[in-house]
């Protein structure tokens, strides 16, 4: 049994078989075997070589008969690679002396040869790299006895284990097959985390290097509450997790009973609980969770995992589905937030030294008005179907806000001129996620209808912490007093002008932090649909006075650690039944 600690990014517990992927999208096999098992690994390899040779022989005979000896020769040469004495002795030495698993040894040796051929200036030889890769693939398939899986076509239910996952890869996930996700790198605001939460797949990221300790087929437990990964659990551990899963299911049933009740404090203050969604089909789970609306509809998914830029119609269909499914509840659509860690197929920016300080989000949209217009048209058209609001991300300066509003207005005029049916009075808001926007909010506030605080980026920019860099990830604390002061100031400015303020960062997924925000005066929270029932339970268990007292104390503390400890302690006192759950 091996226990590893990472960052919990999507709640839930998954127990299942690992499926390990490398960067090229198929299973890796970086793995050592126990001393003494080398003989078994070596005979597995010998057997796999024999099987691969048989397959090549069949291909050679069939190609020779059908296409002539020349083409048959390709397979004969591949057989020669399999039988190569140097290759065999290199494999044997890795397996016997370095206790590599057969798969790992194959992947190491073939990668080395393929790289040597690719480096060659001769095109003939660099093409041979592909032949060598073919042989490698065949050998790996013979070792595992099944065709190489890709992330889009998982052969069976599995826990996906990888160094990292690209947005394109995660967007292609089949949520029915992916039981859990575990990656070596990443942070709580990264794309893997967001998609995992959206799909309600338990996930732990930022575990550090561990792929050499795991192989496909190993039993793995992903604990998305505590950020723990357990490889090959012993019976007691497995039983413990199975019990916890049952317990959680029983809590979920109880939470289901309050689904149709409003999120009111016990003394009757109504808190709006909205959902953050990524994919159109999540609207159904918002309704199932009793969400009051969609507080953050991320629209980047349209760009991720697709080979072409989406058309206006594709945008429109995606928005229309959510607006219809939400049945007149408000839907806040955030305009494109591409860039930094989220990039579509079309490369819009040059490689940057500091992507989070670079051309991303609203900056990217304003620099590519054609892209922005397509989306704006679709949003305005979808606005006829229900209560749609537009929100601009990462506004830093007043000029940006004005340019974005100007573009929106000109698109609306275009649509009107074309005789398209549009909604004229769409509410427009801005996300507050840059400290500059908080400091200058009094100048922005008259030009917008609402404010939404994006605590993920606000925390990152305030504390100067890259949330995906695990060497500093511990400094990333949404409850840091500096962040709390910025939230407090935002609330003051907005409430003076009677503009509504919501929080749509992941911060409110933690019920203790959410109650703090309520105590500070926030009345609208937007969070992952899966986290709504438990927060509703927490809100229904407290009075507004208790929340305000909590906020009063918390705002007088000086460090994130103190704030966190205080809030968790308060939650345990006020709503003990949900604390036990974690």
């Amino acid at each position: 049994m091996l226990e590893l600690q990472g960052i919990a990014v999507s709640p839930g517990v998954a127990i299942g078989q690992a499926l390990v992927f490398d960067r090229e999208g198929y299973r890796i096999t970086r793995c050592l075997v126990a001393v003494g098992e080398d003989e078994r690994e070596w005979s597995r390899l010998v057997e796999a070589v024999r099987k691969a040779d048989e397959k090549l022989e069949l291909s050679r005979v069939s190609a020779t008969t059908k296409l002539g000896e020349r083409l048959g020769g390709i397979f004969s040469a591949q057989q020669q690679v399999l039988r190569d004495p140097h290759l065999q002795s290199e494999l044997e030495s890795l397996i016997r002396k370095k206790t590599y698993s057969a798969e790992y040894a194959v992947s190491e040796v073939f990668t080395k040869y393929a790289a040597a051929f690719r480096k060659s200036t001769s095109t003939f030889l660099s093409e041979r790299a592909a032949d060598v890769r073919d042989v490698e693939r065949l050998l790996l398939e013979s070792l595992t006895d099944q065709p190489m899986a890709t992330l889009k076509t998982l052969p069976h239910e599995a826990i996906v284990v990888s160094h990292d996952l690209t947005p394109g890869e995660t967007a292609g996930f089949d949520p029915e097959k992916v039981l859990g996700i575990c990656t070596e790198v990443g942070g709580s605001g990264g794309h893997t985390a967001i998609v995992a939460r959206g799909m309600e797949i338990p996930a732990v990221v930022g575990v550090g290097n561990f792929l050499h300790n795991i192989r496909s087929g190993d039993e793995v437990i992903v604990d998305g509450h505590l950020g723990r990964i357990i490889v090959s659990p012993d019976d007691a551990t497995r039983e413990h997790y199975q019990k916890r899963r049952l317990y959680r299911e029983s809590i979920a049933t109880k939470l289901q009973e309050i689904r149709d009740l409003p999120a009111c404090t016990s003394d009757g203050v109504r808190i709006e609980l909205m959902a953050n969604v990524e994919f159109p089909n999540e609207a159904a789970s918002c309704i199932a969770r009793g969400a009051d609306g969609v507080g953050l509809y991320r629209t980047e998914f349209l760009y991720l995992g697709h080979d072409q830029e989406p058309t206006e119609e594709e945008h429109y269909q995606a928005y229309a589905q959510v607006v219809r499914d939400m049945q007149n509840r408000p839907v806040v659509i955030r305009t494109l937030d591409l860039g930094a860690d989220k990039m579509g197929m079309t490369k819009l920016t040059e490689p940057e030294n500091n992507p989070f300080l670079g051309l991303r989000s609203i900056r990217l949209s304003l620099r590519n008005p054609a892209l922005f217009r397509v989306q704006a048209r679709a949003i305005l058209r979808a606005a006829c179907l229900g209560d749609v609001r537009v929100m601009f991300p990462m506004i830093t300066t007043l000029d940006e806000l004005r340019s974005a509003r100007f573009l929106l207005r000109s698109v609306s005029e275009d649509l009107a001129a074309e005789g398209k049916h549009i909604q004229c009075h769409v509410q427009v808001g801005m996300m507050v996620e840059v400290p500059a926007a908080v400091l200058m909010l009094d100048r922005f506030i008259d030009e917008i209808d609402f404010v939404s605080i994006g605590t993920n980026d606000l925390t990152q920019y305030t504390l100067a912490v890259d949330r995906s860099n695990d060497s500093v990830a511990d400094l990333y604390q949404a409850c840091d007093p500096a962040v709390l002061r910025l939230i407090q100031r935002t609330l003051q400015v907005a409430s003076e002008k009677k503009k509504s303020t919501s929080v749509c960062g992941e911060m409110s997924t933690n019920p203790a932090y959410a109650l703090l925000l309520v105590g500070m005066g926030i009345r609208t929270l937007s969070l992952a649909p899966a986290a709504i029932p438990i927060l509703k339970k927490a809100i229904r268990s407290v009075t507004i006075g208790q929340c305000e007292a909590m906020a009063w104390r918390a705002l007088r503390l000086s460090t994130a650690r103190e704030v966190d400890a205080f809030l968790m302690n308060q939650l345990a006192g006020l709503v003990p039944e949900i604390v036990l759950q974690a």
Partner: protein
Amino acid sequence: MRPADKLVRAASGFQCQIELERAGQIADCRSILSLLTLGATQGSELLLRAQGPDAEKAIQAISIMFEQQFDEANVESNT
């Protein structure tokens, strides 16, 4: 790749150690990967060397293969 394949098969029929050298790099004629790594293409200058009981026979047989361009009617490449 086909010529390399043929060369390996021929070399494996002898007991002696057979090597090809190109620009200071040495390849074992029994290993197709080692031959390919030489990066030799048509026209490359190669040195053939053999050591062992049937070395002379081997040199003879393999030289003939090179002269006959490995029976490739339309030789596109290598060794």
